[in-house]
């Protein structure tokens, strides 16, 4: 079971699309075996500090370990999975 956090800034249409795209990616590629927690940094900056988030959007894969964090443009799903170490696990 993958435990994932996504840190975003606000709720713009682009952010909502990013969330929907990632949910679709994880559902398809992880056989739905994941939990995704969405954290709005504007409302919860302390959580971002605790997870050492430096920019939005950031994905933190908490488990299975090791913990990995990725930032940037998440439109390339294959690259997202590879950067998170979710390929061939």
């Amino acid at each position: 079971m993958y435990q994932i956090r996504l840190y975003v800034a606000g709720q713009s249409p682009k952010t909502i699309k990013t969330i929907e795209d990632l949910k679709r990616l994880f559902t398809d590629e992880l056989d739905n075996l994941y939990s995704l927690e969405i954290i709005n940094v504007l409302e919860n900056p302390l959580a971002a500090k605790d997870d050492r988030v430096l920019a939005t959007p950031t994905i933190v894969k908490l488990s299975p370990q090791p913990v990995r964090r990725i930032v940037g443009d998440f439109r390339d799903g294959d690259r997202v999975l590879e950067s998170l170490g979710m390929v061939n696990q």
Partner: protein
Amino acid sequence: MSKHILVIDDDPNVRKSFSLTFEDSAYHVETAKSGEQGVEKAKSTRFDLIFLDLKMPGMNGVEALRELRMMDRDVPIYIVTAFHKEFFDQLQSVSHDGIDFDLLQKPVSPEKLLSITVGILEGSVSIGGCYVSN
């Protein structure tokens, strides 16, 4: 063709730091010392990424963000700020208006800034390595 980055910040040390960070990179950096100047530069040049300070005299970051978004709906705009709730009130209001932006924590090291920028412009990148938590 190298990608163009605009840095809008009233602090000359911050502008210099950004310029030095990208000096030997594939990116071309322009700087603006105020919100007004940044908006003017964005009228004449299509930037691939904008870093925007939140607290500035004159046109502040929120006002500049609204102006920049009216000109370009798609360019990534990163508000550079400390992650404190007291700084986020105005940004909450902008967010509720559906205006898109992202956040970059201040301060950030040159190495992390470069990594984050590559992630924004070239696709997601791992940052901070991987580690086993307790």
